[in-house]
């Protein structure tokens, strides 16, 4: 029956866990330089530890020599490959390149030396261990190189820890530092038998480096990978079972351990897959949630900007309205004073001219109003505010009053016929007046002979009929004349200027009063009739 010493068990656990962890980081995580450098460092630590296990397990000198070579080559490679890992971890490849080159030269030299008697002269029992190295004259260079890079590595990490201001980074480095102290410190005691004639007690602590680095990877994302506790726990169980299997005393034990190991590996893989799936889903949800949060912030910002822009546009339109209409108001005001005789008597001829000026100014004011109302429509602004109890009669009288002189100037009549007992409606008085004004004005403008009749009646609805003897509307244009897409006919262009926007606005305003508006015409040159219907109440 084979019995295993604690030293052998410790060496095997360190070897298996190191190699497992290195492979896990590289194959589970991203294939980055950092993860690869850790695979190399872990592998040589595992190789070195495996060498110890084999050496102390050997029963004959030739096997012992073989394992001693494995141990030495693994051990010599540890400082340079661990230092290489640190350079990637600290992202300081360039600055410490000189040291890395030095380590490479030293390691190459020591590996060559390792095959000579200057390095080792043989293997013999020491401290109850079957075989242990008998050092040559230059063997001391190995512990010296090992200690030198242990100190340099510790200094580099400690310095980075001190300088780092990032809390997470500091935690990562703290665990790396602890791992180094136990790994290098414990490992260095393996030089004790041949150098200081002392038992290599520190070897038991080497395993702690795997534990600290694993913790840093799990809790503080040391590597470029997603580490979940389930994976680490599963790998730890696999490692323990593998060690148990390797240390099996009898064939029965070995078979049972192999079966258990295989079963645990299979269950472990299934468990890891299922946990990983859940973790991935959780991460996906968190990512979506963060994206949504980001989108919400962007939307909020955009909304504020839009509101500011809207306010700016409102202010701009107000100022434009003020600036465009004020000079016209002043012209109309002076004309009004002149016509009223405030500056002395005005001749009939001058009075006619003044009235023409007044009409032109009124037209321009209306153009400005129409332009601004169109802008308000485009911006989706509330253009009308309906109030109940509005009677149409005075509105129509005011419209006719404003256009009577223009009709007279054009040599046409403008007649108003309102039925008695007109019902009140819900309306925005001023906007409705401007809508009716535009329609009547359009008729006055495009009628050169005859005139315009306005008729209002209240019969279930308030109906206003504006009929003229003007240029008429071609049949194919009847449907679009109120939609703002009306192309003016040659006749219309000859008769008067205008954009047609007034009729479009009138239709929009009447629709906002829940009313209807349409045009009828027997054709060009045969006059037009506009119908407006507004609900009572």
């Amino acid at each position, binding site marked *: 029956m084979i019995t295993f010493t604690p030293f052998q068990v410790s060496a095997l656990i360190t070897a298996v866990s190191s190699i497992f962890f290195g492979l896990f980081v590289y194959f589970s995580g991203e294939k980055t330089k950092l993860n690869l450098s850790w695979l190399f460092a872990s592998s040589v630590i595992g190789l070195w530890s495996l060498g110890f296990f084999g050496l102390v397990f050997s029963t004959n000198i030739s096997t012992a020599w073989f394992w001693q070579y494995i141990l030495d080559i693994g051990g010599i490679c540890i400082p340079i490959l661990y230092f290489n890992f640190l350079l990637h971890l600290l992202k300081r490849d360039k600055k410490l390149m000189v040291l890395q080159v030095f380590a490479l030269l030293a390691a190459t030299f020591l590996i060559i030396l390792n095959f000579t008697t200057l390095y080792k002269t043989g293997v013999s029992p020491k401290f109850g261990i079957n075989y242990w190295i008998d050092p040559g004259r230059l063997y001391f260079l190995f512990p010296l190189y090992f200690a030198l890079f242990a100190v340099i590595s510790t200094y580099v990490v400690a310095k980075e820890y001190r300088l780092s201001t990032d809390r997470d980074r500091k935690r990562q480095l703290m665990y790396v530092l602890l791992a180094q102290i136990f790994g290098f410190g414990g490992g260095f005691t393996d030089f004790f038998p041949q150098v200081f004639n002392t038992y290599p007690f520190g070897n038991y602590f080497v395993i702690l480096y795997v534990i600290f680095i694993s913790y840093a990877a799990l809790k503080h994302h040391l590597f470029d990978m997603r580490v979940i506790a389930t994976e680490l726990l599963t790998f730890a169980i696999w490692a323990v079972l593998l060690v148990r299997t390797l240390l099996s005393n009898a064939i029965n034990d070995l078979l049972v351990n192999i079966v258990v190991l295989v079963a645990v590996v299979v269950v472990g893989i299934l468990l890891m897959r299922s946990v990983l799936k859940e973790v991935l889903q959780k991460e996906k949800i968190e990512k979506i949630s963060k994206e949504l949060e980001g989108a919400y912030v962007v939307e909020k910002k955009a909304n504020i900007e839009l509101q500011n822009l809207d306010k700016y546009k*409102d202010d701009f*339109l*107000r*100022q434009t*309205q*003020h600036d465009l*209409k*004020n000079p*016209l*108001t*002043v012209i*109309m*005001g*002076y004309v*009004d*004073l002149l016509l*009223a005789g*405030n500056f002395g008597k005005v001749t009939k001829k001058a009075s006619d001219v003044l009235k023409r000026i007044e009409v032109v100014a*009124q037209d321009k*004011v209306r153009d400005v*109003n129409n332009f*601004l*109302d169109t802008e*308000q429509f485009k911006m989706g*602004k*509330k*253009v009308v*505010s309906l109030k109940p109890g509005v009677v149409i009669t005075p509105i129509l009288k005011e419209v006719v009053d404003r256009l009577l002189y223009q009709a007279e100037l054009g040599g046409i009549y403008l007649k108003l016929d309102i039925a008695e007992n007109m019902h009140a409606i819900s309306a925005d008085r*001023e906007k409705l007046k401007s809508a009716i004004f535009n329609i009547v004005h359009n008729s006055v403008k495009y009628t050169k002979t005859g005139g315009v009749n306005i008729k209002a009646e209240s019969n279930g609805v308030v109906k206003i009929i504006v009929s003229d003897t003007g240029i008429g509307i071609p049949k194919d244009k009847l449907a679009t004349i109120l939609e703002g897409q009306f192309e003016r006919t040659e006749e219309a262009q000859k008769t008067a200027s205008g954009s047609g926007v007034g009729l479009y606005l009138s239709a929009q305003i009447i629709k906002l009063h829940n009313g209807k508006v349409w045009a009828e015409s027997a054709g060009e040159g045969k006059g037009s009739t506009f119908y407006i219907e507004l609900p009572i109440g």
Partner: protein
Amino acid sequence: MAEKLNKKVLIVEDDEDFISILKIKFESEGFSVITAKDGENGIETAQQEKPDLILSDVLLPGTNGIEMAKKIEEANKDAIIIFLTNLTDQEYTEEIKKMGCDCLVKSDLKISDIVEKVKSKLGLK
């Protein structure tokens, strides 16, 4: 020239021509007219001169007409204020109506219509 009415009207307006037009018309109708060209000046003049009625534009340099009217009303609840404006947007007209003031659109009226409105407000008709 009409006979003196013993009524004082304060006109707050930044357009000198429009002030001049209103002044000529109101004085010819027998009113005594005082003027101010901005909101701050309007408040000060209203407190000192105690006019019977204030005719004010909405858009004024500095303190606008609505803010000015609020301050005048704080000091004198009985102040009669009529707004004269060329603005037609809901935001202002509704605020003016809420204050209980009249709002006349300059471009829709003849100057004589404005005088008639003032007379009616002061019970002179």
